[in-house]
């Protein structure tokens, strides 16, 4: 059986993406001390929760961590909801774009639906005579894949704990190099083949070189935000396409389910590797690998009734809905940078501050959502209804997760609800709705 070339780094890339997403950008020191108290003896999942009640009693230091200072708790809730909807849409758009790219490619480029071997992480074939054997093989494939992911994650956490930053950075750069150059080259080749467009090698070299080099710069260094977002969406889509191509059918579904369960456990259990990774990052007050997290920034204005002493500080952390899941976490509060210093003024004057707040979503979330929708598009017997149902289900899952986050105010995994909905809707639409709608359409009945 063919093994995919350079599978190690590809898998590493996958693992990086899945494992590092939970990391959040660091909270300033002032928050740490205030937070230590309620953290002990609390459920580990609540370590990032900041109850409003706590805010009221604590000192201004704590205020800085948890909410816009000088605000009543009710208003803090209002702020949460005020930007809740906007944040949801800010996540809908990139997730939708990634899925659209994947589905468009799957539906048009034959290459990604042809079976051409399997990854070495899924060694058991699914061309077996009996259903039971096939099921067994897919479960075994899932176990192997999941254990590889867990091992890689633990390896990464160990590396991070022992401060082997150079190794990690080298690993990341290698994987993005591979994605941006090799996979793009393959993708471009297949697309050109599909549309029967001729391109000479010099032009191809120029295009791929420019695309890849600008991508590396944007992702790992600095670049316009929109460009960085576009590149991250592109590499997520490429990664998802690789998964869709090389994962056998039943294994893919079982892997999706298993990864959601792993996600749930790794976020809510106290000894999960990703939790440890995040906590280590928090202790050291370091950002984690911005190359693997999609971030969108939003600028909004806060009007205040009167100037507040704690608001004069340079660093303010408005409360952010936070979400975390093992593989692909979302929503770190990005460092809100006060773009304009608050106007000094007498009490009673209106202060307006502009704060930049973004939502961050791990790339693995994009990848697995797109894998689900892409698989639905690839194997749903040419049916668009299944794809659309999965798409809506995933969006609703994302919405629900954010809602739960706003309600519970603690770290929640992003994958389980969306993937669960997606799986339920995939199987039910494929088996129940499709025959119904097909029969209706053939008789031209409308419901």
């Amino acid at each position, binding site marked *: 059986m063919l093994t995919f070339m350079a599978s190690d780094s590809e898998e590493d890339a996958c693992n990086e993406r899945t494992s590092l997403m939970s990391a959040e950008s660091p909270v300033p020191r002032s928050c740490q001390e205030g937070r230590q108290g309620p953290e002990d003896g609390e459920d580990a999942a609540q370590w990032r929760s900041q109850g409003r009640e706590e805010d009221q009693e604590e000192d201004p230091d704590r205020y800085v961590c948890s909410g816009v200072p000088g605000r009543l708790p009710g208003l803090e809730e*209002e702020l949460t909801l005020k930007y809740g*909807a906007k944040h949801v849409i800010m996540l809908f758009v990139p997730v939708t774009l990634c899925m659209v790219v994947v589905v468009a490619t799957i539906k048009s480029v034959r290459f990604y639906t042809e079976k051409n071997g399997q990854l070495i992480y899924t060694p058991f074939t699914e061309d077996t005579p009996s259903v039971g054997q096939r099921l067994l093989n897919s479960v075994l494939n899932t176990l192997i894949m999941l254990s590889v992911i867990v091992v890689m994650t633990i390896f990464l956490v160990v590396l991070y704990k022992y401060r082997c930053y150079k190794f990690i950075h080298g690993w990341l750069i290698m994987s993005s190099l591979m994605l941006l150059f090799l996979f793009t080259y393959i993708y471009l080749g297949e697309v050109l083949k599909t549309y029967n467009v001729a391109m000479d090698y010099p032009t191809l070299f120029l295009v791929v070189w420019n695309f890849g080099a600008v991508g590396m710069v944007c992702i790992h260094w600095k670049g316009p935000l929109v460009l960085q977002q576009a590149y991250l969406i592109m590499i997520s889509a490429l990664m998802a396409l690789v998964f869709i191509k090389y994962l056998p059918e039943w294994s893919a579904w079982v892997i999706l389910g298993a990864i959601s369960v792993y996600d749930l456990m790794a976020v809510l259990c106290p000894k999960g590797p990703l939790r440890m990774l995040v906590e280590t990052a928090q202790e050291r007050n370091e950002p984690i690998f911005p190359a693997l997290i999609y971030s969108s920034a939003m600028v909004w204005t806060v009007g205040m009734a009167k100037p507040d002493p704690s608001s004069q500080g340079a660093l303010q952390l408005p409360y952010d809905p936070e979400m975390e899941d093992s593989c692909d976490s979302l929503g770190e509060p990005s460092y809100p940078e006060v773009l304009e210093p608050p106007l000094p003024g007498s009490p009673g004057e209106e202060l307006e501050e502009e704060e930049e707040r973004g939502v961050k979503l791990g790339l693995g979330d994009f990848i697995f959502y797109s894998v689900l929708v892409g698989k639905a598009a690839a194997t749903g017997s040419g049916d668009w209804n299944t794809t659309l149902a999965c798409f*809506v*289900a995933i969006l609703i899952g994302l*919405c629900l997760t954010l809602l739960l986050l706003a309600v519970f105010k603690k770290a929640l995994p992003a994958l389980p609800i969306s993937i669960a909905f997606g799986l339920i809707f995939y199987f039910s639409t494929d088996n129940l709705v499709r025959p119904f*709608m097909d029969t209706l*359409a053939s008789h*031209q009945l*409308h*419901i």
Partner: protein
Amino acid sequence: MTAAVFFGCAFIAFGPALALYIFTIATDPLRIIFLIVGAFFWLISLLLSSFVWFVARAITGNRDGPIEKYLLIFGVLVSVLIQEMFRFAYYRLLKKANEGLKTINPDEPAPSMRLLAYVSGLGFGIMSGVFSFVNTLSDSLGPGTVGIHGDSPYFFLNSAFMTQVIILLHMFWGIIFFDGCEKKNWYPLLAVILTHLLVSALTFLNPQYEISLVSAYMIMVLTGIWAFFVAGGSRRSLKRYLLCQDKNFLLYSQRSR
């Protein structure tokens, strides 16, 4: 067939919905979310009705012939009832959510029930239209001759127009239905359910498109007029709008009604 039919039918079917989306919904994130949740509710209702039809078919043993048609009719009627049930369920959910939003956000005006009625109706309509038509659309992109075996050559056009009318009808039904629920009248609800059943039943007459399509459009116009008056319009406001004398219209897009 191919591109001309594809684009033509796509825009016929989804043009009004797309325009409504771009001009009224895409600007406000909360409305987009309510739209998608509405679409999701319609999806669940479809799932349930497919399940009922599937079970009925399994019980009667998957035989072909006239019983298949009867089962389908049964499936359609059950589906209509389930859709309206889920519309009601969505209304209850929105009512609860609205109350929640009000208690949390006393200053910020929460979206009014009328707006939510419109958005939910549009969500239902878009999902319904997409699900009924998108497979047909993708088939129309490929080669072929419509009606080569003696069927009507207007299959695609009819489906497109029917989809358009159903999307608009869902929107109007949403407005009327929610208003009936708000005012605790039962007759708007009954009227919505009956007109929905009527429109679906008319499609049983396909491929005699004249009857089904024309009647559906007439029902849509009547329902539209009813929804217009329910949503607070009046002959005077319409006149002012048409003669460009409505100063409030400019502000309309900036506040949620």
